[in-house]
C-alpha cells in the first residue's frame, strides 16, 4: 500500500492506494495519520479512490484514526471510496460516522 501526502488549502490529503489490510496497510495508515498529527496537521482527508481492498483491520484503522484525530480536536473525512469500499462502509454502518465526499473541492471546503 502507498500513501501520498499533499495539501489542498488548509487540508492535508492522504492519497491511499492498494490494499488497506492487516499487517501492512493498516499499520501504514496509522503511521501516516500519526505523522500528520505530530506535525500539527489536524484536518485530514483520506482519498480512498485507489484502494482496491479493505479488510476488517483496515476498517478498524480508519475508525481508530478518526477517533484519534477527533480526540485531538481535528477532523478526518473520506473522499471517493470505490464501490466496494463504499459497500463496506454501508454494511458496517460506518457511513453514519464518517463524512464521505465524492468531490475533493467540496470535501476541502467542508473543514
Amino acid at each position, binding site marked *: 500500500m502507498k500513501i501520498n501526502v499533499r495539501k489542498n488549502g488548509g487540508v492535508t490529503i492522504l492519497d491511499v492506494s492498494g490494499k488497506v*489490510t*492487516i*499487517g*501492512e496497510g493498516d499499520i501504514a495508515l496509522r503511521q501516516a495519520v500519526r505523522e500528520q498529527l505530530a506535525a500539527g496537521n489536524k484536518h485530514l482527508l483520506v482519498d480512498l479512490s485507489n484502494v482496491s*481492498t479493505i*479488510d*476488517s*483491520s483496515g*476498517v*478498524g*484503522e480508519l*475508525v*481508530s484514526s478518526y*477517533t484519534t484525530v477527533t480526540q485531538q480536536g481535528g477532523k478526518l473525512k473520506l473522499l471517493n471510496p470505490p464501490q*466496494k469500499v463504499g459497500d463496506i462502509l454501508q*454494511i*458496517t*454502518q*460506518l457511513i*453514519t*460516522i464518517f463524512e464521505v465526499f465524492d468531490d475533493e473541492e467540496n470535501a476541502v471546503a467542508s473543514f
Partner: protein
Amino acid sequence: MEPGQLLFHLAIDSRFESIEVVQVVLCDVLERFGVEEDGRHWIDIAVREAVANAIKHGNREEPAKKVEVDLLLSGGELVIRVMDRGAGFDPALAGDPLAPANLHKSSGRGLFFMRKFMDGVDFAPRPGGGMVVTLRKKGPFSQINLGSKSELSEHGEERAV
C-alpha cells in the same frame, strides 16, 4: 472429514503477508469456476478474515505454525476450510459490531464479514488441537478443467498429489 473434491491444499506460515498467497490461488480457482469479479472480491474478503484470525488469534503469529487452507467442491458448494493450531475460541463471544456501543471500536468485524459474504460459516475444534473455520458458498459454478490435483507450498511450488 467432509466429502468433496479437494481442489487445493495450502500450508502457509503464520505471517500476514502469506494471506496474499491464499488470495492468488483462491481467486484463480474462483475465476475458473466462472465466479464474477464482484463475487470473487467478497469471497476473498471472507477468506482473508478467516486466515488473518487463524494467524493472529489462532497461531499467535508464530511463523513456524502453519495455517492450512483447503478448497473443496462439495455438493455444489464451494467449501473453504481454514485451520490453525491455536487454543480455539468461542464465536458466540464475539460482539455485534453494529451495536451502537461497538461502532467506534477498531476491532471486532472479522466474523461479521465472514458471515455477511458467505452463505455459511461454521467453527469446530480441530483433531489434534486448533480450530477449523469452514466457509461455504453456494453455486451454481461452471465446469472447470481441473487437470491433476495439486498441492502448493507457501512458496508456490506445485506438487502432484
